[in-house]
């Protein structure tokens, strides 16, 4: 696990477009985050398999995090759209002090298959707050013609 280094504003740095989506940590809002993932990948000229994979990977990451999020907390998902790849960072404030992303599940294995790179992130909570847990993933545009 590595430290979280979460971008807080939505600047364009070096041709990177940033889109940050923040919702209540509620599974009912994950479909909207999936829609953002699909839209960004389609506009970044990802091939159809890569669009489908990114949509599923983002869903998986968000579903995993919503499961450990503190009640009434929020889910933050940032898309860094680069040339030929999209990096996604999702995070929540966890409810339990020992909360972490489980990496021994079927879902995590699927996530590893879908993304080109995936990492679980964790920053311990301060002052009795739960830790911040997150998932970072990278997806390349693919090369099949659309």
């Amino acid at each position: 696990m590595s430290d979280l280094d979460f971008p807080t504003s939505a600047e364009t740095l070096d041709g990177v477009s940033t889109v940050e989506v923040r919702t209540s940590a509620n599974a009912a809002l994950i479909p909207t985050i999936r829609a953002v993932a699909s839209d960004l990948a389609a506009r970044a000229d990802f091939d159809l398999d890569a669009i489908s994979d990114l949509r599923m990977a983002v869903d998986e990451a968000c579903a995993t995090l919503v499961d450990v999020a503190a009640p009434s907390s929020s889910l933050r998902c940032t898309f860094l759209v680069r040339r030929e790849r999209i990096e996604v960072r999702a995070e929540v404030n966890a409810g339990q002090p020992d909360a972490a992303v489980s990496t021994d599940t079927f879902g995590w294995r699927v996530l590893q298959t879908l993304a080109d790179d995936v990492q679980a992130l964790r920053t311990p909570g301060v002052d009795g707050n739960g830790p911040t847990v997150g998932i970072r993933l990278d997806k390349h545009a693919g090369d099949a013609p659309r």
Partner: protein
Amino acid sequence: MSDPVAPCSRPTADAPPLRTSITLPQPGTVLLDVHGEVDTLTAPPLEQALSDLLAEQEADRLVVDLSGVTFLASSGLAVLIRAAHRAADRRLRLRLVTASRAVRRPLQITGSEQLFDMYEDVSAAVD
């Protein structure tokens, strides 16, 4: 392709984003039709619908039509895989009808296709 006329139709309980229904298109064949997105919220109603399908003890052909499914998450895959194992206990293989990339792709990349008999349209699957 003619849609089989259902002699018996039982809509199962469904949250708005997932609609399921079970029909008996011909003797010995049970067809579960699924429409919508299968994700962490809708995997449980899909699991219930698959249990209803597997409860049809007289049937020797179990078909799940996923043509109307527009998204399939790992939670949905896991439910399908568990149903395949339960069918295998009865020496049956589930027949899946998959028309779109949104369904085929998750089955492919997880290597789960081998657990099912795959069809591209429902008429071939029920035949």
